[in-house]
């Protein structure tokens, strides 16, 4: 039967989430992908999570997605980054065995009902009356479908570079996808080109570890997924990473290759300050920094390859090698593969709507790197929401559009549609203006209700989550009331050299003191232990309570701001609003608004080129 509800083109991180969520919502789904054995392949870094990306994985997990589980099952190191910052910045990261990650993905998908995996390449999308109706593949098959989600990653007309020598392909040793871009452009879509790079791979026995700083994982590693069984975690042996640095000599050698760097040209055209993938970029951008940190990371348990994180480069191979040999610990390094850059087609994302459906063709969705993003987690998050929304539309359910104040995933789609930048988009915590509310520790509290609503989280799972959070809130409530007498805590305060109490103080006030932890306060006298027996041995819950109490002021203030901003955020703009009738707009604002068609005034405020005056004009108009 060549007849589906939803076809997903591309089995990368976006494609996996999209096909799994749609299938679990009960629809008949086909995942058409080039290489059945390459599902969820980690193209670049053998790692999941990191700053802001860890947040994305937690959100995907809270919604009932797949990525957290795959990462937990294939992890060979787990670490929480940025512990020296506040809790909103803490971010989980794992090193993963590249091979096992893919095997886990294949295994996971094989168990999903209603999901058929087809090894082929989508070469053409077919529409009738602006509605998607099917696809044609390289093997000459014609599939009929109600919806198509394109998650083609870096493969659309992919070209790889090492130095100035190009070769056709979407990824090392993989072919490019040809034809699909052209068929979309024929429908009226606008495509563009983007580049991204990857660092060299090193032979693991050619590195002098003895002079390098070892970086092991956390002592008590935490999984990404709430579904992961903590008692047996981690499942695989754990490996260390190693730290080293570039130096001026390395920089000088790299500079000799700048004329041969395709990436470097892009930089001269003004790649923004946020995105800094290649070592070439870093040297130029931060030219007063004499050294840059590099991580030597294992690619897998039985892999001979090591990954040189921070040294992404598309300079000629000989220059990469020459420069590396001047790096501490890499004096005798053997380069198994040079770094390379890949250039590919993307579709500037103003062409999609907040539900990932294209504005031009109904039933057509774009997710992942095709929208100009970079990174596995960004791709997975998009795939998940595209899958949910495509399925919801067919099922007649309301769409799922997360707000910026609700999730990084809300920030992601809002930025994509509204800003439509021409450099690869990567998530940063700085992109989330409400980030103090968007922490990893409360991802489930924020989002699991939606996971349940769309059938990706079971009733039992939801109950379990809700119980956890109600326990947390109950405990906070009693800590707010519980009075601690001076004689119960002064001993502890004295040993810590802190000002002692003259009068009783509530437990939460004490926990708010920067120098005290919740465990300090609870263990300050034995009676408390009994009262809080439910939580005393659950570090994860204790930590969450401590965050809520310590940062209460910030959290509350941020919430107030969200409420205030919601007043504009919720002003709807009619779908086919004619911006030409208002003379007060600047020309740029009128063009952008017409192109992007924001749904709300809030969305309009974030479109670059739309000025405060434009917004107030629009607002006054909408109100009158």
């Amino acid at each position, binding site marked *: 039967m060549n007849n589906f509800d939803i076809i997903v083109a591309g089995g990368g991180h976006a494609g996996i989430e999209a096909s799994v969520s749609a299938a679990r919502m009960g629809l008949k789904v086909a995942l058409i992908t080039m290489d059945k054995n390459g599902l969820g392949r980690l193209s670049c870094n053998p790692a999941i999570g990191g700053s802001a990306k860890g947040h994305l994985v937690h959100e995907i997990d809270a919604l009932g997605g797949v990525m957290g589980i795959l990462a937990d099952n294939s992890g060979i190191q787990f670490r929480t980054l940025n512990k020296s910052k506040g809790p909103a910045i803490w971010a989980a990261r794992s090193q993963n065995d590249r091979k096992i990650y893919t095997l886990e993905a294949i295994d996971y998908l094989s168990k999903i009902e209603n999901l058929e995996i087809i090894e082929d390449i989508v070469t053409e999308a077919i529409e009738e009356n602006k509605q998607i109706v099917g696809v044609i593949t390289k093997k000459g098959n014609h599939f009929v479908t109600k919806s198509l989600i394109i998650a083609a990653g870096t493969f659309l007309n992919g070209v790889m570079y090492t130095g100035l020598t190009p070769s056709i392909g979407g990824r090392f040793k993989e072919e490019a996808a040809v034809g699909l871009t052209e068929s979309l452009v024929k429908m009226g879509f606008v495509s563009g080109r983007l580049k991204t790079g990857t660092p060299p791979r090193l032979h693991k026995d050619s590195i002098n570890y003895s002079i390098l700083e070892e970086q092991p994982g956390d002592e008590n590693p935490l999984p990404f997924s709430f579904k992961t069984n903590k008692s047996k975690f981690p499942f695989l042996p754990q490996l260390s990473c190693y730290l080293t640095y570039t130096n001026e000599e390395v920089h000088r050698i790299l500079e000799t290759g700048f004329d041969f760097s395709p990436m470097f040209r892009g930089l001269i055209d003004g790649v923004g300050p946020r995105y800094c993938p290649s070592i070439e970029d870093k040297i130029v951008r931060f030219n007063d920094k004499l050294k840059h940190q590099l991580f030597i990371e294992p690619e897998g348990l039985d892999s001979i390859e090591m990954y040189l994180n921070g040294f992404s480069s598309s300079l000629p191979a000989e220059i990469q090698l020459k420069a590396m040999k001047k790096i501490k610990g890499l004096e005798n390094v053997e380069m198994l593969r040079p770094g390379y850059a890949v250039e590919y087609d993307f579709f500037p994302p103003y062409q999609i709507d907040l539900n990932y459906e294209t504005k031009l063709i109904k039933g057509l969705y774009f997710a992942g790197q095709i929208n100009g993003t970079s990174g596995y987690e960004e791709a997975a998050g998009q795939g998940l929401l595209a899958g949910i929304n495509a399925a919801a539309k067919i099922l007649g359910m309301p769409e799922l559009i997360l707000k910026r104040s609700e999730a990084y995933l809300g920030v992601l789609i809002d930025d994509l549609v509204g800003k439509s930048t021409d450099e690869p988009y990567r998530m940063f915590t700085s992109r989330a203006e409400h980030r103090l509310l968007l922490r990893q520790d409360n991802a489930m509290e924020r989002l699991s209700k939606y996971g349940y609503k769309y059938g990706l989280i079971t009733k039992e799972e939801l109950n379990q989550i809700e119980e956890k959070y109600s326990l947390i809130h109950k405990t906070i409530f009693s800590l707010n009331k519980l009075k601690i007498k001076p004689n119960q805590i002064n001993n502890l305060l004295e040993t810590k050299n802190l000002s002692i109490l003259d009068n009783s103080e509530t437990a939460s006030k004490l926990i708010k003191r920067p120098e005290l932890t919740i465990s300090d306060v609870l263990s300050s006298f034995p009676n408390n232990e009994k009262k809080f027996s439910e939580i005393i041995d659950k570090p994860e819950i204790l930590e969450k309570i401590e965050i809520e109490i310590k940062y209460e002021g910030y959290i509350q203030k941020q919430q107030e701001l969200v409420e205030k901003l919601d*007043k504009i955020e919720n002003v709807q703009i009619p779908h086919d609003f004619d911006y030409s009738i208002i003379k007060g707009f600047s020309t740029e604002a009128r063009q952008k608004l017409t192109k992007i068609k924001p749904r709300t005034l809030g969305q309009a405020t974030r479109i670059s080129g739309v000025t405060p005056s434009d917004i107030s004009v629009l607002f006054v108009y909408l*109100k009158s």
Partner: protein
Amino acid sequence: MNKFDEDIITALATPNGEGAIAVIRVSGKECFNQIDKIFKGKIPLSEAKKNTIHYGKIIYKNEIIDDVLVSIFHSPNSYTGEDSVEISTHGNPLIVQKIIEILLKQNIRLAEPGEFTKRAFLNGKFDLTQAEAVADIIQSRNDSALKGARNQLNGLLSAQINNIKNSLIEIISLLELELDFAEEDLLFISRNEIITKIEKIIRTFEVLISSYKFGRILRDGVNVAIVGKPNVGKSSLLNYFVKENRAIVSEIPGTTRDVIIEEVNIEGVLFKFYDTAGFRESEDEIEILGVQKSEKTILQADFVLLIHDVEQELDLNFYNKIISLIEENRVLLVQNKIDKTIKKLKENEIGISAKTGEGIEKLFKVLLERIGQTKIYTENSLIINNIRHLEILTKAKNYLTNAVKSIEENQSQEFISIEIRYTLEMLDEIIGVVTTDEILNNIFNKFCIGK
């Protein structure tokens, strides 16, 4: 749906009532055609050159209503940015009424309050702070207030706010960059540099905040209480100010019982003088009430002229009582009746005669100096006179103070950044990025119909 593009609106633009002339405004696409139906001049307005003035008659059903001058403005060169007409008629309310009635029969509707300005705003003639300034200009009752509002209208406030925003955005983006590269532990801007920059901005806020008092004074006038013991010449002074016998003057102590208020414009600044009952112990119930009122007046005053009869001893108890009600630096001791004494005043004493007017010029000078801080606020300095701006700037200042505190406490970037973000959010409210119903209503409701 696009009603404002189609509707033609009209309203009287000059104050209601009798006057030499009255101006009726009409605005909306091709309103010339509508007016041509009732206006007979040399040529039809629709054929006239852009932005010209025409003499003619308003004729309706063969009846001549009035001789008028009609100014025509072609879009976008008009107040609203639309095609507009201003009809100057004789200032008789009956004529005005009649013409407006006739206009309303030409497919023209009556404008809502502030609608002309709203259209101007929608047509990009000015931004929100400027629209607010227009409201203030309309309400300005004196020169200085007008200047203050006009500076705002010229975009001075937006410009200054934007400057501040830019330097805050610069700080924040460096802090954010540090977070984006948190693993590398880089510092892109030294904490001292941030503090210096922020403190400079805090000082700018403080100047603006303290300008409010002056700005408000410019707009609403300075409230000056004239107080003193009975019979020292308070009412005489008030009368001298207004050049008429406004308050009863008599030799009998305790003449004034109720507070009498008079407005006087001194060198462009509006003063409101409050003549009060003289202070003394009394059995008379009405007089006691009067003294209570005097006290209340002091509490609400910006400034107090404490009038003293030059020939009497200064009663220190009484003086102390007054300065317990209002700060001493807002009290000016004035020696009255210098015409009938031979006593020499000290250099720094202020002596006047409410009878002859001697010394009153000097009193004005001192008064202007003391309330106006005229040296700080020149014509071109930015003065905020809007309570909305005052509240926002006060909050913004607090956020920045918190930011400095966070830095001093060595907190991580996101906590510094959040305070700066809040500040930016506040500033956006002033220039209209964050527009809410309340703000808009506030602004456009200040207008009356016809503006």
